């Protein structure tokens, strides 16, 4: 998880941005700015940007998907969102149920200002994912940010609560 460590250098900024955004979301309809690379970082580096805590699930993943995903990540860091999206699509066509992949697409859609798609991908990732640990928090953080920016204040607050209660252990199944 190289990327998380590199984002953790900006905890103060992330907190400020988050606060500013919540204030704005509460009082005025947000004017979406397209292609905002910062916003996805708030998903991965939350307040404080600590190392992922609780149970982490690292399932065996398709190497083809991993390769395309890291190429997409590189394109995203270069600001080439079109290419990043095309690469993630290729990966999704190979493995359309990979929760990590779906979450990455959600974060990319968030960066591009497509709130509805960001929320849909994050929700799909959560549905198919382990629903615990770091990815669970990223799922709900994405949904919260997307809803905030989309002006759905109440729904966003609900998603925020879900971030906090992402279990550390897998839920009991019966």
């Amino acid at each position: 998880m190289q990327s998380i460590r590199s984002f953790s250098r900006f905890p103060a900024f992330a907190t400020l941005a988050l606060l500013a955004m919540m204030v704005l979301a509460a009082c005025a309809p947000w004017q979406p700015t397209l292609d905002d690379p910062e916003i996805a970082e708030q998903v991965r580096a939350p307040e404080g940007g600590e190392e992922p805590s609780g149970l982490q699930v690292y399932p065996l993943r398709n190497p083809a998907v991993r390769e395309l995903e890291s190429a997409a990540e590189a394109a995203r860091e270069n600001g080439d969102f079109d290419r990043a999206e095309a690469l993630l699509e290729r990966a999704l066509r190979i493995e359309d149920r990979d929760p990590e992949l779906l979450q990455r697409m959600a974060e990319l859609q968030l960066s591009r200002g497509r709130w509805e798609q960001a929320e849909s991908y994050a929700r799909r990732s959560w549905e198919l994912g382990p629903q615990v640990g770091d990815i669970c928090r990223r799922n709900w953080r994405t949904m919260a940010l997307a809803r905030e920016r989309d002006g759905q204040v109440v729904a966003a607050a609900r998603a925020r609560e879900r971030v906090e209660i992402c279990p550390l252990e897998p839920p009991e199944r019966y």
Partner: protein
Amino acid sequence: MASKPRRRRKQRSRSSKSKSSRRLPRWLLRSLLFALGLAIGLLGPWVWWLDREVSLRFADRHLTEASRVYARPLELHDGRALSHRDLLVELEATGLRAGSPERPGRFRVEGERIDLHLPAFDFPDGHQPAQRGAVRVRGGRVELLGEAAVLRLPPAELGRILPLDDRVRTMLELAEFPPLLVAGAQAVEDRRFKHHFGIDLRGLARAMWANLRAGEVVQGGSTVTQQLVKNLFLTPERSLLRKFNEAIMAVSLELRFSKAEILEAWLNEVYMGQDGRRAIHGFGRAAEYYFGQPLEALDAGQIALLVGMARGASWYHPLRNPEHARDRRNLVLAMFHETGLIGEATLQRQRQAGLGLRPSLRSGASQYGAFLDLVGRQLRSDYRDRDLRGTGLRVFTTLSPSAQRRAETALAEGLVRVESEPDFLQGAIVLLEPDSGEVRALVGDRVRGRHGFNRALDARRQVGSVIKPLVYMLALARPEAFTLVTPVADEPLTVDISGSGPWQPVNHDEVSHGKVPLLEALARSYNQASVRVGLAVGVDALFELMRQLGVAPGRDAHPAAFLGAVNLTPLQVAQLYQPIASEGYSAPVRSVREVVDSDGETIARYPLRLKSLKQREALALVDFALRRVVTHGTGRSLSRLLTDDPGVRGKTGTTNDRRDAWFVGYTNDWLGVVWAGRDDNKPAGVGGASTALPVWAGLFNELPTRPVRSGWPDSVEWFWVEWPQPKLAAEYCDGAVAIPFIAGSQPEVLSDCLERRGSGPFNR
């Protein structure tokens, strides 16, 4: 139609007026002079206008260069489900040939191992250089041998289309035509092409002389340029005015464009017969249509046949008039020989040879014709005309060549197995990737490569019980009123319909089954119960849902619609099932991913989108019921027919008097719709389970599939229940079944089984 072409109507010589003008009165001379002046005054602008038309329209024709259409690129990676045979089909469709993998574009098979050298390709997301790779296919799974984790094959070229034109062509550049064809066509049609200026007075004179000697028309006097003008700009009527226009325009064309441009245009435009409603233009397309081969693969005899046809594609049609065609071909071969294009040996050999037609592959490279048809329509409906008019577009589509091959085979072989007499039935198959809605295969005729009536897109037929899942979904979206175990009365009922009197639906077996759980009513396709469920949701709601999914249901909102008295095409049925098969995420069924212009700029693309349906939870319940159809219901014969059941869900459909048979079935990877029936819509003795389902099973046995994994929303919860009177039970109770419910809608009454044990269902 089959009139002998280009017969020149002999101009009756004008009545003699050759008397000396000295005898003419002065007033007559004056009026003649006046007429001459008038003619020149009119002629000037007329010629100017013709010249302008020619230059504009010929240049415009160049702009509408055909768009190349590509299949979806195959991605090879570890674990990809794909058979060895399908991989070879894909490689060959991509244009790779067996050979030493030292060279790009070649592959070599050694047992399970395939070494390949992929040629470079310009993808919409960038240039992919040529690369070598090796794969092994073992047990239906791909294994990459080498560094790369993923190998993307260049996509197969499916054909070329002009989306805004209903003529079929395969446009080629002059250099792509075989030299024998280029030289031979000139030798036969216009020997002095290189030297004349559009009209050939010497050639005309020679042709008339030859015709006079022979007493019939043996040679035409039109130049290639004149023929092109006629083909491009003029109506086929024969008149002196048209002949005059033709001459002026031919000269104008020669002045403005090079010989090479004119010849190339003629080779691509000349009329070569009909393919159903569509006219075949150009030698490239004709080669594919008549011989099932690209032009460069033709032998001298086949080229001679085509060159001969240029004079009159109807009269020398090799299928309708094989005798004329053969005589003409041999004459053309003789001319080839006479002009030194072929040697004596070739002449003798080819004269004896058959016509070389391949009727089964008559549509040749348009083996993808049914799919290209869909691509053309979707381009026209989704893109602006001016975008499609661009030159040299590249259209990236969703077709899987190997799945297409499997689907064609499954329909052809499947119908033979289920029909009572040969060629009694027709059919269609639509195969989608459910999550994206992308069409992977489309078959509109049982004969591979025959391209006429495209049943997958154009056969609007009653759908029968295939509609029912939508009706039940609307009911289940009201969990306070309906769950999968809600008892429904399968008993006779009368529905009063204003205007058409009472309607009394009956069951297929003409038996009523009393109170049945909703789940069983759907799985066993009981009509009377279904109408009761339908009346609770209303026809309007059903039609609204269909519209929401992008399918126009028609206007007649009769309750018989609950039983499928709605006319839909197989493609529309696929659209209705797409969200069911993709766990509630709806996507338009589509064949195009992206269109790129000649500079590599994307004109438009359809990105992957997730759009969840608001009835998602109800769909989860329907999905469960559709599994029940193939385990306990009308589709239970499927388990016998499938070699391996990955967890298929499906629904049968049969219409009144057994006219139509439908089966729709899906897994996570595939959604397949099969229709079978008769084109004349007569009773065909078919049934969803007996006719369409076996065809479907034949297809799915050959497709690479993975076990179904469901990912429904967590508001769907599972409980053990008993029926007919729904009660909450537990796994250990006799006859209890695990059933999904929308949270909170599960039965509250406890089973006696639990009462006896004195425990609730979850505190064992």
